[in-house]
């Protein structure tokens, strides 16, 4: 019995350690973004110093193209998410409910695409997009982002659909639903947790992506946030203050998304609990 408090203290201590370990870099970035001087090399561990100002944040919105990048990033990420969810939810339904030739083969090949490192795909992607005249176009990014996110999303959705009893659909068909209506009125509402996870995955995959965007987008007016931030890093002087302020703002939407849908995340992890 005496070991219990010690166990508790140990547990709390290690959680605290990990929290500091993962939060400190974020706070450090916050510190840099608030420093008026370009004091990246500062040895001080202080987050907020006497010289702290909001100047970097102001400059970011007024002196740079940050708002344009933000708009571009939102456009690309939301587009990719919509496309990804639409394709994943429908194709996973077909894979879960219909028996057709090549079904298992298709599932396997979806999985196989996940085995390749993404950087390996950059050259073929570039060639395909240039032949389709989709270089410097958001459509090119939509295509690549949703196609790379799809396999995971399809598997995720299929696994969820598999847990929904078939009788629910049969009842709906007898009630007068077509297949499509059954899908929209019965299956989709029941799949909300899986849909949310799929959407989040698609959003995150495109929001912070740099390598593919760097290849596809060449016009600075088309830059997404990661590309834009990278442009602060000049060969002679990097504007660390601006960079840090930008990085913080970039991480905000994902943070907000995570917090707002954490309810679904938890129920999404307990899939299989849907009862007929």
């Amino acid at each position, binding site marked *: 019995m005496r070991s219990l408090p010690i166990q508790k203290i140990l547990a709390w201590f290690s959680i605290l350690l990990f929290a500091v370990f993962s939060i400190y870099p974020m706070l450090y970035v916050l510190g840099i973004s608030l420093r008026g001087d370009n004091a990246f090399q500062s040895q001080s561990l202080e987050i907020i110093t006497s010289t702290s100002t909001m100047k970097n944040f102001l400059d970011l919105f007024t002196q740079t193209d940050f708002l344009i990048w933000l708009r571009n990033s939102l456009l690309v990420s939301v587009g990719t998410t919509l496309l990804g969810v639409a394709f994943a939810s429908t194709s996973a339904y077909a894979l879960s409910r219909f028996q057709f030739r090549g079904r298992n083969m298709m599932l396997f090949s979806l999985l196989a695409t996940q085995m390749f490192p993404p950087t390996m795909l950059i050259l073929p992607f570039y060639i395909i997009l240039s032949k389709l005249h989709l270089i410097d176009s958001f459509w090119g990014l939509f295509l690549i982002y949703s196609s790379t996110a799809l396999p995971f999303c399809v598997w995720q959705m299929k696994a969820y659909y598999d847990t929904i009893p078939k009788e*629910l659909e049969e009842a709906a*068909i*007898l009630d007068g*639903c077509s297949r499509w*209506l059954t899908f929209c009125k*019965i299956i989709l509402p029941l799949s909300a947790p899986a849909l949310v996870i799929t959407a989040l995955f698609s959003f995150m995959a495109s929001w912070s992506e740099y390598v593919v965007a760097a290849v596809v987008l060449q016009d600075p007016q088309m830059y997404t946030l990661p590309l834009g931030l990278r442009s602060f890093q000049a060969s002679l002087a990097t504007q660390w203050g601006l960079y840090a302020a930008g990085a913080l703002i970039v991480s905000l939407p994902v943070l907000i998304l995570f917090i707002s849908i954490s309810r679904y995340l938890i129920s999404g992890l307990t899939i299989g609990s849907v*009862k*007929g």
Partner: protein
Amino acid sequence: MTHIEFSEITKSFKDNHILNGVNLEIAKGEFLVLVGPSGCGKSTLLRTLAGLEKMDAGDIKINGKSIKNMEPQDRDVAMVFQNYALYPHMNVAENMGFAMKLQKRSASEISAQVKKIAQLLQIDHLLERKPKELSGGQCQRVALGRALARQTSIILFDEPLSNLDAHLRSQMRVEIKRLHQTLQNTMIYVTHDQMEATTMGDRIAVLKDGKIEQIGTPSEIYHRPKNLFIASFIGSPEMNFMEGPLVKKLPWPEAKKPEQILGVRPEVFKISNGVPQANELELGSFQVELSENLGGQQMLHGRLEGQNLRIFADSTEFFRKDQILPVKIDLTKSHLFDKQTGVNQRLQEGV
């Protein structure tokens, strides 16, 4: 009047023949029970009628009109599923009104109909609840209510009570039967429980290996089983089957043939010392092994000339182990089956 007519229905899943030419006519307002061991094709037959399963060959007519190419929702058929299949994201009222909503009926009409059915099933206090907030029995009532709310002339039940406990099951059995008497819909009820079949059905169709073995009233099926399979499947406790020298004691000409089996239900035995009356046969001495008290009756397990038998006796009498009892059987209620073909020999004679 014939309401539903199945003719020569066949259905296979790959090499597995589920239905092998089923012919069946169901009258308007009838309560027909399809019963049989698992895998006999009873659920598949029901699902072909509902349109959830396509048959390979044959035809189904409702009111004389073929429904072979009709969509499930146009077939005038509602169904109650074994696992209830209530829509988890809708409350009870929405579940019950879903079909009507799809038919674009007015909200007031839907709510009136839902209320009416809910009162009939005594679930009107549950209308706002979600399925996960209901007990198994309540779920089953809601599923029943959803089927009734569609106002179809045919209602199908696919083992609807098998997820309920014994007490609820017997309660719901009576309730469904009562509903049938009130509503007079044609109902087809699938079960593997022969008790449900005999207590609920106006007629029973016993299926085996995708074919109907016998169809008739519960009493016909119980008292005049066509073959060995029906005789052993229907009735609980099971009919006693005896072979060998015992069979030769029978006065029937068929009993002289080789390989015949005498079938006698437990209640047909009579424990008595008296002189056998007409149609009675002195079978021999029964040695009691143990007795089970079932309340009003007791069941004696024991042996008669090397054969294991179960005999019903009055529960007020006391029998001790190894007691020897003289037993008689009523010949009019006894059966003789051919061991090879399983056919009930006495039925063929028109006895």
